[in-house]
């Protein structure tokens, strides 16, 4: 058990380092740098450009700069943005908090709903509840997020006027101030993730309900709902853990479209902005954070699966 944990953590560290290296290389390869961006039309002035590069410390070899930054990141110091003044931890910190808030709200709504719907559609397979929910799920999955977001804005904020259609709160505001602006993005995100998780849970429930042990439980005289809760669901929901984990990681790092549509100040938008600004230190920091989140969430999911699945658990505890 411990051995497996050590191995996984080491693997995670390697993954994160590789990701940051690739991102660093990627931004280096792009034509132009922070100075050409910063100077705009003045970049033709070689002297100015050279001075700027000297000021921003861009003249040293790339590898050296990477080493310095990576060294800082390990100790928790993400450095300063390319302008040399703003602390990256402040900019990124606010955005991370906002992304966490959004992900958390979407999860609270989406995951329980998805599990419930998945179980219902699985148990009532091919009957009305299943047909309705499954059809809706297909819609939720196939309609692009910006379309469903725009539709919801049209309905709830323009026609009905119930909810604000856009987030105007500043990035550094405390979490409580994002309500009710955050509700629409939460709904859109929940819809999409809910559909994915639901479909997976549904097929897993169907498979388990056909299994020999469920038949055996029935033939042992176990009442239906007791059989569902004690024999079928613990087995059917095991594979859901990993799907939920992937969804959480996605929520935290990859919802740029939603952030743009609703003007939500999250990590994804900061990432895009920083890339167009050639703000290498910020881009690296975000990439590092997102990669770490992926690694941690997946590790947590695997551990949870292992704890919940006797077959995996006993491999490590008993011989």
């Amino acid at each position, binding site marked *: 058990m411990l*051995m497996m944990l*050590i*191995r996984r953590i080491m693997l995670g560290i390697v993954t994160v380092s590789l990701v940051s290296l690739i991102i660093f290389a990627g931004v280096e390869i792009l034509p132009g740098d922070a100075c050409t961006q910063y100077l705009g039309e003045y970049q033709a002035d070689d002297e100015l450009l050279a001075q700027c590069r000297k000021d921003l410390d861009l003249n040293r070899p790339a590898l050296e700069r990477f080493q310095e930054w990576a060294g800082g990141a390990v100790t928790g110091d993400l450095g300063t943005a390319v302008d040399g003044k703003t602390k990256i931890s402040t900019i990124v910190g606010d955005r991370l908090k906002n992304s966490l808030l959004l992900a958390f709200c979407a999860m609270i709504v989406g995951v329980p709903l998805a599990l419930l719907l998945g179980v219902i559609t699985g148990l009532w397979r091919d009957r009305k509840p299943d047909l309705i929910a499954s059809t809706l799920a297909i819609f939720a999955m196939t309609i692009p997020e910006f379309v469903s977001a725009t539709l919801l804005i049209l309905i709830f904020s323009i026609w009905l006027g119930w909810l604000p259609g856009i987030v105007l709160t500043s990035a550094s505001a405390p979490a409580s101030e994002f309500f009710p602006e955050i509700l629409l993005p939460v709904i859109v995100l929940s819809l999409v993730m809910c559909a994915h998780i639901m479909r997976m849970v549904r097929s897993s429930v169907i498979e388990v309900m*056909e*299994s*020999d*042990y*469920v*038949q*055996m*439980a*029935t*033939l*042992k*005289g*176990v*009442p*239906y709902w007791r059989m569902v809760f*004690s*024999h079928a669901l*613990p*087995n059917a929901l*095991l594979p859901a853990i990993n799907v939920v984990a992937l969804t959480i990681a996605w929520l935290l790092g990859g919802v740029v479209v939603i952030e743009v549509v609703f003007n939500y100040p999250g990590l994804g938008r900061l990432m895009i902005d920083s890339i167009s600004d050639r703000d290498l230190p910020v881009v690296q920091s975000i990439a590092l954070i997102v990669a770490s989140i992926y690694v941690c969430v997946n590790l947590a999911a695997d551990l949870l699966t292992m704890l*919940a*699945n*006797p*077959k995996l658990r*006993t491999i490590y505890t*008993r011989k």
Partner: protein
Amino acid sequence: MTTPSFIDVRNLSIGYTSRAGETVKVLRDVSLTINRGESVGLVGESGSGKSTLALAALGYFKRGLRVLDGQIHFDGIDMLDLGRDDIQKIRGGRLALIPQNSGQSLTPTLRIGQQVAEALRLHSELEADEFDHRVVELLTQVRLPDPAALISRYPHELSGGQQQRVAIAMALAGQPDALLLDEPTTGLDVTTQAHILELLRDLASDRNMAMLYVSHDLGAIARVCDRVVVMYAGEIVLQGSARQVLKSPRHPYAHGLLASIPRLSQQSLPVALDGRPPMPGEMINGCAFADRCGIADSTCTASPPPLVPIDTGEHVRCFHPGKISQLPRASKTAARKKPSASGKPDAALVMDDLSITYAKPDFLASLLTSRKDPPATVEGINITIVKGETLGLVGESGSGKSTILKSIAGLISPKTGSIALEGQSPLTAKVEDRPAVNLRQIQLIFQNPDDSLNPRHTVAQILAQPLRLYFRLSGDDLRQRSIELLEKVRLGSHYLERLPSQLSGGEKQRIAVARAFAAEPEIVLCDEVTSALDVSVQAAVLNLLNELKTQQQTTYIFVSHDLAVVKAISDRIAVLYQGRLCEIGPVDAVYKPPFHPYTDVLLGAVLEPDPEKAPKLSADDVVELSPPAQGCPFQRRCPKKIGTICETDTPPAQQMGGGHVINCHIPADDL
């Protein structure tokens, strides 16, 4: 209507609605009665409807199936007219099921104790605090070792035999009056099977339970049942006392089934029952068995025969029960034994001091812990296989027989030692490094053709692969050769365009055989090739393998846990325990005393389809997970262990003459 028997199935027809909207019958007008304390065996090939009938007795029908006609009573209760609550009271209570595959029938996320206690909670008057005590009692009753510790185990931590015992304990928890057993010992080792059957016999007689024992294994039925019912294509074709049915079957199908079972006492190969049973829904005008029957005539195809009593007491569905004696009892073609060659015969394959281990060196683990390498899974195998010979490898699961095959095929690298083909330098360990010629020379046939044939490839594509790869055939040549191969395995060219899902189990295995022979191999490795098949089909595959061997001078290594099957096909037998060789020699010598104690245990546990023969159980059926570090591999279970020498010293190889070797400390004269 007369008062119903204890379990009383009357004129039952079960069916489903096909895609075309037609009603397809799975069971046709079946009547069956079982009295208290009586045990009835239900026999038939897969698809004969026997499991459907057993489940119907519980009022349970698989998805899509429904009762078309008939009644089912249990102790006077109409099982088809019960509410959900009432039927739940009976199921697992007075009427309990012991399922086919306990490994899959126990819920993987619940502990053994929880699952047995659940049955107590549902079907006993006990208070919750008495459960633990009673569970231990039940587990003890089914002879499980260390029941107190087992309670907190999960199903996957138990061996197959132990899982089956847990299922029995679970059934006993409800104090049942009747047990339904659905192939309860299929897939278990011979020794385990024999022990479980003895347990069931004892339980049935102690508690005066009625039993319905569903199985395709007539040996098991013979041991447990008083009465036997034979089913074919959803109908009962023969029923009578176990003695009558098994000794002198009065229906040609039952006769064929019995003749297709390989027996230890028989020298020749079993007789194959040709053809296949009709599919449910197929139109049959006369007797369903007519097209496979050796004594059928025009009356048989004109109208269906009724089930009628005959003078000896059985009920038979046949127009000509008197003509059964005309059918062959045993095959005339004895397995072609290798002629005892004068001089030194050519070696086809040499295994030299072969050891194999699954333990992988783990750098991280070796740094952090001081665990030593476990003993190798297979060790010290020195066997030379002669050209044209069939070597049988027998042993229980975990004996390393499949591991050896995998190593020869190059799927696992040996730890030490080597494997060499006839007069060549040793084979490269890994299959991907072997030259094409070696790949062609060694072919493997797997246990389950469902898993080894690509379901999306047609038979033509399956056969074309080796032909293209090894012989660069294409176009007409390829097709011609494929047809030849199909004919060799007794299938016609019309099979070329079929997919595996359109073939029966036996046909699939024939295709797997044809694919192996397409490579014109020198050595064919057969890994339990008949274990997944019905007995009748098994006999056909054995006959086919034997025929091909005669034609092609092929060398076989034949792995099986069934001693009778191995005996029927092999020239020489190697008995393995925990990856170590116990005994090796010509068939006749190995199956005759003196025996290695392990061979003796195995042979004692073999069940013959004869109610008068009892198995001899001399060792318990504990499953050992790893071989002992030193001494004799069988030391922990050996009924004849003589002392500490067995634990410390590797047993000497005693030469018995004629290539017969027994590895045991006990002098051969005392074995």
